């Protein structure tokens, strides 16, 4: 997974609470065979409404989602995270996330930032007034910065370390490459192989 150190981009203010994963990506998208291509399914029902914030031309290319409390509740589908990432989001800010969604997001390198609701409110006001306003999410200093706003956030050390270094479970295992190689070197020759060598 991609390392996350610091990211600056325009934001989408999503003034809704309790956005569940069925709203993020509806069930009929789960038949797909890839982790890519979920961008059109993101908030599919809402996007049919021309006035929905994501449909506004000035939001195109935005990379930070600023959502209401309890974002990502409901089904555990990892597809919700993939859909947000496929669409281009790098970070989601909310005052509260559902646990499983948060776990899935950190595993996939989508940074979920918890800020107090009053700071979320100021981010909403700022980005609604000025769609070009940029928001910086800095994982090194654990700060969110925008015009007139500087707020610190918490993230456990292990998750932070993994995100800063871009380490997923596989990367962590691969840090033990020497152990794996040593094991492979002493595997007996009679063990079967599926391919001719």
């Amino acid at each position, binding site marked *: *997974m991609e390392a996350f150190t610091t990211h600056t981009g325009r934001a989408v203010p999503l003034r809704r609470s309790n956005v569940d994963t069925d709203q993020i990506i509806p069930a009929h998208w789960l*038949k797909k*065979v*890839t*982790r*890519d291509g979920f961008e059109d399914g993101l908030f599919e029902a809402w996007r049919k409404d021309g006035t929905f914030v994501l449909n506004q031309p000035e939001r195109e290319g935005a990379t930070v989602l600023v959502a209401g409390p309890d974002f990502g509740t409901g089904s555990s589908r990892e597809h919700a995270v993939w859909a947000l990432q496929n669409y281009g989001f790098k970070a989601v800010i909310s005052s509260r996330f559902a646990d499983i969604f948060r776990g899935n997001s950190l595993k996939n390198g989508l940074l979920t930032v918890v800020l107090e609701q009053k700071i979320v409110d100021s981010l909403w006001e700022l980005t609604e007034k000025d769609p070009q306003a940029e928001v910086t999410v800095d994982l090194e200093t654990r700060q969110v910065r925008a015009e007139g706003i500087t707020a610190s956030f918490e993230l456990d050390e292990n998750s932070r370390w993994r995100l800063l270094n871009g380490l*997923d*479970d*596989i990367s962590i*295992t*691969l840090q*033990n490459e020497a*152990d*794996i190689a040593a*094991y*492979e070197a002493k*595997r*007996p*020759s*009679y*063990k*079967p*192989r*599926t*391919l001719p*060598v």
Partner: protein
Amino acid sequence: MGRTLAEKVWDDHVVRRAEGEPDLLFIDLHLLHEVTSPQAFDGLRKSGRKVRRLDLTIATEDHNTPTLDIDKPIADPVSRVQLETLRKNAAEFGVRLHPLGDVEQGVVHVVGPQLGLTQPGMTVVCGDSHTSTHGAFGGLAFGIGTSQVEHVLATQTLPMARPKTMAITVNGELPDGVTAKDLILAIIARIGTGGGQGYVLEYRGPAIEKLSMEARMTICNMSIEAGARAGMIAPDQTTFDYLEGRPHAPKGEDWDAAVAYWKTLRTDDDAEFDAEVVIEAAELSPFVTWGTNPGQGAPLSADVPDPASYEDASERLAAEKALEYMGLEAGQPLRSIKVDTVFVGSCTNGRIEDLRAAADLLKGRKVADGVRMLVVPGSARVGLQAVSEGLDVVFKEAGAEWRHAGCSMCLGMNPDQLAPGERSASTSNRNFEGRQGKGGRTHLVSPQVAAATAVLGHLASPADLSDAPAPAGV
């Protein structure tokens, strides 16, 4: 203190062990099929990774493949896309694939052993719960999820917490007409569908030692239906004889070295299991399920149980719901249950021995009027072997349909399904609601009971056939 078989195999695969972390285990063989691999390959692609050990990886197509007209394009678009995706991924990453139409294609758990790729003392994984089948050779074989499939593709290892061990000792000898399928159904009915949770089961004892490799695979296959992580049987001469000469079995000096190692793969006399169950083989008889989980089974000679007879409230409720779904009455003799369909196949009972057993009983007899019988070999090779023995002719003459290899009606992902309300006697492993088609009703049986049931039109054992009128012209 001595170690159990499972502990020995586990210890031999630990790449890294650290306090407070799961062990990192090396995986000797990774089997792939079309349903659970696409997102794993996609993950590799996104992170720019390769398959670490192409030489320990093999793929086949089974869940979605049709069993008729296999040379025509696949009608169902979702199935077609899944198969095409596997073909694309295998080509891109360089994975050996046996696609539909290939002589080595078939249900993934039939293909591994028949190629000789599944051997004693190995760790085998696949994104499929019935991977436990491979434990019949005395290895540790686990079903895994898609994210773990990606992990194994990229690293050839898996971080895993050490499971507990349970001994299932089967004393004595299976009576005539009682098969491995009857034994495992009886074991699951005894310990329950959650009885094996957190355990690796080791089947042992005189009755197990007498079983063929195919029968052992039937037993280990269904370990998962008892909730276990895996099932295994210590390798012995039967195992070695089965393997010798298979395409991927060791040869020459390697064979000798391998056998010397395999012989050490036995639970030590002073080893301790975390749990033990003892079964007396002599008390067993043909066994069938009446409910909607594999633990809801009874001897064929019994009646459908009365839910009121269960002391446990949740079991009572489960039995009530099962009888309602299955359309059965408490107290009705199991033998009186009429079926519409008989399915012989799957990774539980789709091997050559199973087809021989069914054909033996069908020879010179006819499938009852109004009953449809489907015979689906577990792999293309099993199909060819059956044809070379003339079994396909026996099936066709009896009025059964002889099909191409695949999972087929085991889970009805392809067109082979039950219609709502239809009832089957099936040699597969799951009788869940809707498993074989929406509203379909499944009775799990052995191939022998399947064949007898096909002839008589109701659940029956081979012994019941002797009373059947002799077929005309024989």
